[in-house]
């Protein structure tokens, strides 16, 4: 049972109040997803706003085959991919260089532990190929189950399991400092 069903029906019927409530419920998760997928490239809040704008426009086409949360994640993945592709083209056009990695930390990097921890995780995720990063983010950070992820990415469950396994293997040495802190 989709906990958002009633709100989705009301929003699809034109209720902005219902849609506002959906945004409040899912904004943190979508911004977190955008941050993880973009790994320092671009503005994740801007991308997340675009996700909800697109969701509003295409809400009538949401048939309820999945939960609203899963559908919103699909929209988010498409928005981020489009944004990254556009950014990659602009970068090539104006600099001639391909931006393969996020920018290194500046001398004024925050010392706040929470921010530092988040940065370590985001940078580690940024080293992964897109397919592995998306899968492990959806599973371990967004809490989607394997079936949902497989449906969202339109791949077999076995593929999802394999991607997540390989992603975690690659992340282990990069996240090891966080293991030792025990946080």
């Amino acid at each position, binding site marked *: 049972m989709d906990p958002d069903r009633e709100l989705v029906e009301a929003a699809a019927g034109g209720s*902005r109040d219902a849609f*506002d409530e959906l*945004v*409040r419920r899912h*904004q*943190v998760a979508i*911004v*977190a997803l955008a*941050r*993880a997928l973009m790994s320092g490239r671009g503005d*994740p*809040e801007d991308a*997340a*706003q*675009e996700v*909800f*704008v697109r969701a*509003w*426009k295409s809400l009538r086409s949401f048939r309820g085959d999945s939960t609203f949360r899963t559908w919103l994640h699909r929209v988010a993945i498409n928005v981020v991919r489009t944004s990254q592709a556009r950014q990659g083209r602009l970068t090539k056009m104006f600099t001639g260089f391909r931006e393969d990695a996020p920018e290194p930390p500046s001398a004024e990097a925050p010392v706040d532990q*929470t*921010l530092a*921890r*988040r940065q370590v*995780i985001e940078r580690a995720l940024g080293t992964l190929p897109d397919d592995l990063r998306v899968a*492990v*983010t959806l*599973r*371990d*950070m967004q*809490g989607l189950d394997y079936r949902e992820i497989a449906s969202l990415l339109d791949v077999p469950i076995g593929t999802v399991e394999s991607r997540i*396994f390989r992603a*975690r*293997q690659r*992340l*282990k040495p990069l*996240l090891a400092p*966080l*293991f030792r802190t025990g*946080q």
Partner: protein
Amino acid sequence: MTEDDRDQDLVAATLASAPPPEVSPAFLARVNARIDADDQNGWFGVLDFRAWTLRLAPIAAAIAIVALLWPDNAISRTSSPTPVATVTTAADTFTPSLEDDWQQDVSGNALLEAALDGGSNVR
């Protein structure tokens, strides 16, 4: 549980414990502003040349490719929509495809005779 399993669990737990992002208090207001801006565009949005440029670019590219690859002899081909009755003339049956037909030492009278014969002497 193997060491690999423990490592998998450690990574999963670390990712799951990632601090949630701080979402700006104006996030919802900005979403609504963007939705309202898109709604106000209305017909102006339809006339947005940038959107149409992006939408039509693939079609324009396909037309350009077809035009570049179109064979030259196809341009001069004409086709009549309805069948037209044709009169077979000597010229229709005269097929100077053989080298002998273009012999330089053939007299003009011989050529004329061949043409008037309706191709009966044509090899």
